[in-house]
Structures are given as structure tokens and as C-alpha cells.
């Protein structure tokens, strides 16, 4: 785990190697280091951390989406990287708006990102450009909407019990 100083060093190396605007911010809380990066530079940052950084992170532990509904930009995509050799972890986070959320795929860097990017697409609607198989993975293929967004209705239906059976319409009536 890079400490707060190490995180700033990583961020500076990323800025030097990728782009000056690539790292939007850093945060270090509860012993976990996080790089906040610009969405259009995400893939370049991950490629740098994977391949050309002097302390590389070769393993993608998790890739997942998130919805911070009151805040803008709403959607987040989190990458959790790990270095097996040094036993260090770092998180890379990026934020996207709900209007046309797009990221470049990282399946060529991390093959495990295949299904996880499909899951993020399925649940949050983030389109990963260049993904080899950009289908839904968990919901039916003809499903409408992205159900893990916070403004998506919960769904479900009222269940008949003896105390409310005279109030609720039965589905078969």
C-alpha cells in the first residue's frame, strides 16, 4: 500500500508520463490510496500503471461501477489494482455523466475486465469502447434500462398476505 507521500509520487509519475491533466485528484483515507483520473485518460493511466511505471500494478482485482446520485458527475467507475510482488494496492476512480457515458476498454491490458465491464454496462450503462463482446451479462438481453442506477425504480410487487389480500388486486384476476 503506498502511503500518502507514495501516492503523490505515483500521481506525479502518471502526470509526467501520461498527461498533465490526467490525474484530477488524489485521496488517501483508511490506508487506501486512490487516484482520481479524468475519464478520457483512464485507459492511458491504467496502461502506464500496468506496464511502464517503475512500480507496476499488474493485477486488476476489481472493476465496478457506482452511482453517486445527488452529485455530478453521477456515475463512477472504479478500478482496483494490485501488485502481487510488492503486495500493494491502489484504486483508480473516474467519474462520468449519465449523458453518453463512455470509457475505453481495458480488456487488452487486463483480460479479467471482460465480464466486469459487461457488468458495469449492464447495471450502469457505461459503454466501453473497443470491448470485444459488449452485451449485457446478467439481465436479459432485451431488458430496458440499467437497473443499478439510483433513479431506476426498485421494481417488485406487493405480496399477498392474509392481512392485505382484500386490498391488493391479485395478479390473476
Amino acid at each position, binding site marked *: 500500500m503506498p502511503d500518502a507521500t507514495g501516492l503523490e509520487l505515483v500521481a506525479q509519475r502518471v502526470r509526467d508520463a501520461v498527461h498533465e491533466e490526467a490525474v484530477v485528484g488524489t485521496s488517501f483515507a483508511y490506508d487506501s490510496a486512490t487516484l482520481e483520473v479524468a475519464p478520457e485518460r483512464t485507459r492511458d493511466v491504467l496502461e502506464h500503471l500496468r506496464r511502464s511505471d517503475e512500480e507496476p500494478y499488474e493485477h486488476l482485482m476489481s472493476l465496478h461501477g457506482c452511482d453517486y446520485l445527488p452529485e455530478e458527475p453521477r456515475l463512477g467507475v472504479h478500478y482496483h489494482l494490485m501488485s502481487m510482488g510488492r503486495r500493494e494496492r491502489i484504486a483508480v476512480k473516474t467519474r462520468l455523466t449519465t449523458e453518453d457515458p463512455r470509457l475505453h476498454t481495458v480488456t487488452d491490458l487486463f483480460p479479467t475486465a471482460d465480464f466486469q465491464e459487461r457488468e458495469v454496462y449492464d447495471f450502469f450503462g457505461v459503454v466501453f469502447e473497443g470491448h470485444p463482446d459488449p452485451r449485457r451479462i446478467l*439481465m*436479459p438481453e432485451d431488458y430496458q434500462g440499467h437497473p443499478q442506477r439510483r433513479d431506476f425504480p426498485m*421494481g*417488485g*410487487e406487493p*405480496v399477498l398476505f392474509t392481512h392485505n389480500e382484500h386490498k391488493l388486486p391479485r*395478479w390473476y384476476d
Partner: protein
Amino acid sequence: MEIIRSKVDRKPDDFRSRQLQAQQMLRGDLDGTDLDEYVEQRLLLTKFEDAQNWARRNALWPLGFGLACCAIEMITVIGSPRNDLSRFGAEVIRFSPRQADMLILSGRVSIKMAPVIRRIYDQMLEPKWVISMGACASSAGMFNNYALVAGADKFLPVDVYVPGCPPRPEALMYGIMKLQDKITSEPNDGWRERYKSAGTEEASDA
């Protein structure tokens, strides 16, 4: 106090004497009233449907099919010697729907899985029965949201509902025994017609 005595001249009814009697019958040594008595002792008259239902209820083969966490409980019921479901004739797990009689919906039914389950049900040969095990399969339970079908009885006829989250093995066994009672009494719920599930077995090309 009344003392009831059996007839003195009656033949002994122990196993050995019956065995000897059967031996005589097979040799053709029995005739006359002895043969009539022999046949009367060994005949059981019943209706064909009753005999058929009796055979069906005592050879109720479940499909090896699990959906979610209830499947673990189901496996302990139909597959473990602790619960010993072979007492009720329902322990022969068949992993092909062609050979199974009973589909136990053990777990939540997602909307993506529902057409798969219906197809498996359609592939099962008549007679076939369905047990909805647990709260999720019966009413979506605690997962009452966008992903699940609230109640598997929306797309296939369910014969027995077993409540619980998950049901105890005893509860599932009780449900299976209820199903056996249902098979014996043979009520016509009209469900096969309502769910259009009669005659849906897919023909095999092979």
C-alpha cells in the same frame, strides 16, 4: 371378560407354512377348496387408477436442479442419508428432465431464468409435478425487486408451496408427502389447461 379364540382347525399362518403352501401351488398339488382359499388370500382388488397413483406416489423422482440457496437445503433432503427420503420413494435424483417426475424450485427465480425453467418443465414427461420451495420461489421473498419473478406460479403450475427461508428439511419432506397425498387423491385443479402446459413435451429427433 370375553375371550375370543381363533378356530382350532385353522391352518397355521406362519411364514414357513405359507411358503410350503406356495410351493405346493407351484407344483400343481393344490386343488379344490385349497386352491380357492389360496387365491383369495393373495388377491387385492382395486381400481387401475388407484394402483397407478399408488405406484406414482411411491416412485417420485426429483430432478437434480437447484436455483439458489434453498438448493443446499434441498440437496440435504433428497440426497442425504440423514433425512433418508427413500422412505417415501423420492430419493432417485434424475439429472435429465426426461426421466424426472418432480421439479423442486429451490431458490429465487430471476426473470432471466424463468424461460429456462419453463423449458425444463416442458421437457419433463407426464406425469409431472412442481414444488415451489421457500419464500423466493413462491413470492420473490426478500428479493422483491426488478430482477425476480414474484412467484413461479406465474409461468408454470405449482402443486405444493413450502414456506420458509429456507424451509427446514422436515418442511420440504412434509411438502413432498403433501404432494404424495395429492397424487393419490388426484384432484383436477385445471392448472395444466390454465398454464397451457399439457402436451408441451418436445419431441426428440433422435
